[in-house]
């Protein structure tokens, strides 16, 4: 099956475990999808192997939910009163990142444009060739990319500083420093995609940082910012959206 394409248009093969399972004949044409051509590795029957494992996961999770549910009470405040506004009025925790953005940027930008961009950005991820190839960031025209990186970073930092969006700026700078350091990660020009078989285990150390593609950096930056914003919005914001320390009585 692996040498399909080099021969004629059609290729026939038989399942190797013919004694255990029904015999199969496979036709591979040029239009056959990647799922047939790809190396599938060893396969197991869904029933019972997957079903059993999922059942165990379900059981563990159910027990965990019940145990926590017995001791952690859902909050209930006073009856809703449109005349009494709590200060601060907070959205559910997963929207507090957005609310934190609203503190810095005009509502149109923070409430509409940025979330729309995030959703559109997520949707188009698999349709970018760059993402699919996963080429390391610092390969190919390294100097040019470094220049572009510095320009984009500069614009971003200036914009965030003008709006005094410190909780966005801080994680941005941390990630940017990591990106910058990864440019100098070991073995100089080793960032080129090496030919030949690659190590099967995930690389660690400087090789790990060197091999990160641009999509990895952007996603990691996005997650860092979203995480910091959500944590700050949840724990570090008090009356009038002022900064408070959660461990100080307030």
């Amino acid at each position, binding site marked *: 099956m692996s040498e399909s394409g080099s021969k004629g248009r059609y290729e026939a093969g038989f399942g190797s475990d013919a004694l255990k399972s029904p015999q199969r004949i496979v036709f591979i044409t040029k239009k056959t999808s990647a799922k047939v051509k790809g190396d599938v590795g060893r396969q197991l029957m*869904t029933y019972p192997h997957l079903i059993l494992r999922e059942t165990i996961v379900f059981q563990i999770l159910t027990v965990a939910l019940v145990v*926590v549910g017995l001791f952690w009470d*859902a909050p209930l405040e006073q009856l809703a009163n449109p005349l009494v506004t709590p200060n601060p009025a907070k959205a559910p925790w997963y929207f507090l990142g957005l609310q934190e953005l609203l503190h810095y940027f005009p509502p149109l930008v923070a409430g509409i444009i940025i979330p729309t961009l995030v959703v559109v950005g*997520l949707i188009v991820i*698999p349709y970018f060739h760059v993402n699919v190839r996963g080429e390391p960031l610092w390969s190919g025209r390294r100097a040019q990319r470094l220049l572009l990186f510095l320009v984009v970073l500069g614009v971003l930092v200036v914009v965030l500083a003008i709006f005094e969006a410190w909780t966005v700026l801080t994680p941005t700078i941390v990630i940017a420093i990591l990106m910058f350091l990864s440019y100098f990660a070991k073995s100089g020009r080793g960032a080129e995609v090496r030919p030949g078989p690659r190590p099967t285990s995930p690389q660690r150390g400087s090789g790990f940082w060197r091999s990160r593609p641009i999509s990895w950096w952007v996603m990691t930056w996005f997650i860092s910012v979203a995480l910091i914003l959500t944590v700050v919005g949840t724990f570090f914001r008090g009356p009038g959206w002022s900064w408070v320390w959660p461990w100080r009585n307030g």
Partner: protein
Amino acid sequence: MAANTLDALNRIRATRVWQSIFRRGPARTNRARSLAVFGNIFFHLLPVKVREKSLRVRATYYLGSISFLLFVVLTITGILLMLYYHPAVPQAYRDMKDLRFVVSNGVFLRNLHRLAAQVMVLAVFWHMFHVFYRGGYRPPHEFNWVIGVVLLLITLFLSYTGYLLPWDQLAFWAITVGTNILAAMPFLGGKLRYLLLGGNLVGENALLRFYVLHCVILPLLAALFIAVHFWRVQKDGGLTVEEAEEKTGEE
């Protein structure tokens, strides 16, 4: 003892009634095991075979399965909660008090529903980020990634609409803050908020609309997209299990 139980089980499996339900005997052959999957309307969304690699805990952390289980838990606890809930002002809030002080295990029921909802938001986010870092969005999985993003939005909206239902201060002001963001959208913002709330302020109409969205429209949509999501995993050739960096050099 164990052998006896197994014997008894096998005898039950051999009965006509059992066979009429499951249309197959004990799953001793791979053929019977395949039938067990594609002869079952629920299992047939899954592939008949799975890669050994993709079963490893570290390949997925079973985050998709966990998200799905949480959806099931939320459906069951949600239906039970509906038995004690009226989407009206201020009866909704009184029902919360009843759940706490009158209904047997009412507190536990509500705790479970809320906890599962919070964990589901976390699990769905984690699932998405994990799939991203494992490169699971790569062809031929592109479209299933898009469905996944839709499911994330449905999950968030489900959680958000549920937030209003207790009709306490927390609920009221969280929804007021959230829908005010919507109003910032040019041209459509005010109209969309009016559509969502059934008025200009969060009131009785908003509660009813959020209730219908939370209990009927969004769960149905979620179930539909979850089915497509599972189905597409199978149709796209199973889970991608390669590390992102393993893929890089091969092309």
